[in-house]
């Protein structure tokens, strides 16, 4: 935030070198994407990867080639964290600064990188070789601390391994070389497995146990589309991304809409901190995922699909593309799939660029359309008018995988697992203070305590179920069950032991939501900043007893007036800890002596003027001797 900082006239001191990028090269990039404005994210990603900056002249050229205005291009370029209007290094090191990484030793790792590279977090080296940044959860909480080095992922970093990696990069080795000296000889699958462990701790019956190849698709090809929808409805399958909408109903709505074109979108924008189950499915069961999407296509009559892969999972891009290519070769994608006339379906991979909000289905569609990742006004709903106005089914990775298995084994088989209202199995990604972080595939209905025992997290004092947008629960709630009706989760279970500072966690999660709010609506854009500041007040010991009521009231307004799920859940870290850990708050409050509310901080208010005047304030700077 630029609050309290001196005015700089809004001009960046390090604007991109305008002459450096020839316009013809930009035009060639646009042309490679058909000069299609809907491929704006791909165009800008390519520019960023190649030139490490999106300069004003580049935006002008992209606008010309795609028939947009520069401000429209700038709107996209300035929205995504992985795109930059100021020059970045040839290698960008993104250290994951999730709370789990912080507790796993991020500070030492950061210090090692800073020391070797000679730059601080947020800076780019003068020779433009390196940029060092923090980035929110990159989905590696089971092997934290982790970092992205361009498209390469490093995990389980220590001060020593971080220093070694930084020194190797400084000596001129490529990021790929850090993974393997013979990186280019490895298959995409081998590369991904070298970089990241999948940590499957418990394989369940549906997804991570033995899965026969394309058995569901073979059955679906012989069925009428309406029968497929009925089977999914009968199975009781609900969306696994967190919202839990009934999958069969979604498919039925999309199928029932009169339309020329329909779309199947896979939401692989797994951004909820502490969630990494889709990462594991994408590398362990990529064929099952594509099989599920293909079945959905047959069910609703779609012939086009998009797999939206979060930018943080770029290391899986080759793997997914190879799978798509292989399936095209084998007649499992493309025209007349499995020889069924008119069963046409193909998928394009859309890579994100660092925006949690794109996991919201409307925002995901916006992003696929080449727009800033802003949620759409509902109604209309995506199943009625989604991607480019066509009926669109958006489902999570895990949901599609389940659908494929349901078609193979039958709705009854799936329905019999789990509990009433929460059928089948669920992947839980467990991380934090436990012995065995990783993926557990379990039927719905286990208690938190049972899961903690499996993962070796018996020392837990607090568990964040469902990530920051879910609930932080205390020991007295560990008997509660993981179902849609009790404790719902998209998969994240983050374990904290008794030594962790609850308010530090809450403050981090609020800063996460402030960073990730799209800014479209007032309550989420502004209200979350206020919540973050209020928690800061508690942390500093400046809070009054009335501030507890203030937190509740402000949270209520944000939840009730926000436009999408982000703002409707962003106060949850505060509300659930207020409810389950009330002493954490009340112990830190004290009545104000003079009854003055200290919302105004004179020191930060005059800081800008101080910098401009280059002198201290005679009135407000207490120590005049220095």
């Amino acid at each position, binding site marked *: 935030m630029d*609050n309290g900082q001196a005015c700089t006239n*809004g001009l960046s001191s390090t604007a991109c070198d305008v002459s450096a990028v020839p316009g013809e090269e930009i035009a060639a990039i646009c042309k490679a994407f058909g000069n299609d404005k809907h491929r704006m994210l791909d165009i800008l990603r390519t520019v960023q990867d190649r030139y490490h900056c999106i300069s004003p002249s580049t935006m002008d050229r992209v606008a010309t080639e795609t028939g947009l205005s520069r401000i429209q291009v700038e709107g996209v370029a300035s929205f995504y964290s992985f795109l930059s209007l100021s020059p970045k290094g040839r290698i960008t090191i993104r250290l994951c600064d999730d709370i789990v990484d912080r507790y796993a030793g991020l500070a030492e790792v950061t210090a090692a990188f800073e020391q070797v590279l000679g730059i601080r977090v947020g800076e780019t080296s003068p020779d433009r070789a390196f940029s060092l940044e923090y980035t929110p959860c990159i989905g590696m909480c089971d092997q934290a601390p982790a970092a992205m080095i361009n498209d390469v992922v490093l995990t389980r970093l220590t001060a020593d391994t971080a220093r070694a990696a930084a020194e190797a990069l400084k000596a001129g080795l490529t990021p790929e070389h850090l993974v393997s000296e013979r990186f280019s000889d490895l298959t995409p699958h081998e590369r991904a497995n070298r970089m990241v462990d999948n940590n499957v701790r418990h394989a369940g019956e549906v997804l991570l146990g033995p899965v026969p190849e394309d058995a569901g698709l073979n059955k679906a090809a012989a069925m009428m589309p309406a029968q497929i929808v009925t089977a999914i409805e009968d199975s009781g399958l609900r969306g696994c991304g967190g919202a839990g909408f009934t999958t069969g109903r979604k498919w039925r709505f999309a199928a029932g809409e009169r339309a020329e074109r329909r779309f199947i979108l896979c939401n692989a924008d797994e951004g909820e901190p502490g969630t990494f189950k889709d990462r594991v499915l994408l590398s362990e069961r990529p064929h099952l995922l594509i099989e599920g999407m293909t079945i959905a296509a047959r069910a609703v009559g779609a012939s086009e699909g998009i797999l939206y892969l979060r930018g943080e999972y770029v290391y899986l891009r080759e793997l997914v593309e190879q799978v798509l290519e292989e399936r095209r070769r084998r007649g499992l994608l493309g025209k007349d799939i499995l020889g069924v006339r008119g069963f046409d379906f193909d998928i394009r991979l859309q890579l994100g660029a660092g925006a949690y909000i794109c996991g919201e289905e409307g925002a995901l569609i916006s992003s696929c359309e080449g727009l800033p990742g802003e949620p759409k*006004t509902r109604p209309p709903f995506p199943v009625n008018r989604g991607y480019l106005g066509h009926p669109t089914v958006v489902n999570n990775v895990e949901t599609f995988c389940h659908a494929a298995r349901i078609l193979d084994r039958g709705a009854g088989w799936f329905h019999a697992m789990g509990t009433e209202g929460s059928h089948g199995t669920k992947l839980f990604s467990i991380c934090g203070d436990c012995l065995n972080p990783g993926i557990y595939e379990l039927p719905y209905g286990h208690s938190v305590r049972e899961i903690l025992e499996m993962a070796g997290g018996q020392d837990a004092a607090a568990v964040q179920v469902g990530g920051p947008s879910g609930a932080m629960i205390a020991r007295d709630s560990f008997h509660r069950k993981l179902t849609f009706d009790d404790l719902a989760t998209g998969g994240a279970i983050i374990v904290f032991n008794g030594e962790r500072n609850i308010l530090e966690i809450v403050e981090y999660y609020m800063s996460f939501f402030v960073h990730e709010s799209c*800014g479209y609506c007032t309550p989420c*854009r502004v209200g979350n900043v*206020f919540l973050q500041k209020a928690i800061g007040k508690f942390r500093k010991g400046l809070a009054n007893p009335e501030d507890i009521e203030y937190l509740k009231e402000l949270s209520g307004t944000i939840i009730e007036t926000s436009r999408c799920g982000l703002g409707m859940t962003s106060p949850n870290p505060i509300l659930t800890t207020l409810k389950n850990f009330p002493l954490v708050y009340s112990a830190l409050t004290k009545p104000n002596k003079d009854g003055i509310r200290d*919302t105004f901080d004179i020191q930060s208010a005059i800081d800008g003027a101080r910098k401009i005047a280059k002198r201290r304030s005679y009135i407000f700077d207490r120590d005049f001797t220095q």
Partner: protein
Amino acid sequence: MSGTKKETGFTFTIDGIEVTAYAGQTVMEAADEAGVYIPRLCDHEGLRHQGSCRVCTVKAGGRSVAACTQPAAPGQAVENETPHLNKMRRDLVEMLFHEGNHLCPICEASGNCELQAMAYRLDMTETTRFPYLEPCRALDASHPDIALDTNRCISCGRCIRASEDVDGKGVFGYVGRGIHRRVAVNGENLADTDAQVTDHAISSEVCPVGCIIRKRVGFVTPIGEREFDKGLIGHEIEERRK
């Protein structure tokens, strides 16, 4: 013509008042026609609905929705002027005040400002509890006839839609994300764009605050004789019902 309208029309209630709506109308459109005012800032007659300021939040069927984008539904009971809703609206208006730098006494728009007028209507009279974000945004006085002081911008985007849809130009657009999201111009500065003082986007009715300033016409209407010196914001709509 009125005959065909009646055939497709249906009724619903706002705070118990029966309102007629037609297929495709939003709650706010129907309310405006019926002379029921629902507070709003980002919505403006003749422009696309955006649903971003959230000041028009109403309760429909127990759920909170933005009246400007929510389709009216037959038989629905909509709540509008309740203490609870007005409290939340006041919070939102306060948020907008605190997000920018709104110094009414020195602002040319004072008295014509919808943000200020909304604060009066919603009874924003107590000391606020929110912190001031005190952003530092540069003034753009590059254009010979227009100045932009985005310190007063409330991100309603009315200028963006007016320029795109009415003027056919696209002078303005949103850039950035989250708390950094703001209205910017299509070029290095306003002089670099094809904005003209005669654009609808530049007219006094489009910018609800004192962000878009027409040079050399400041204070033509004296304080005391301005738009909201005559009555509360929304009074023209409410008078339709009398």
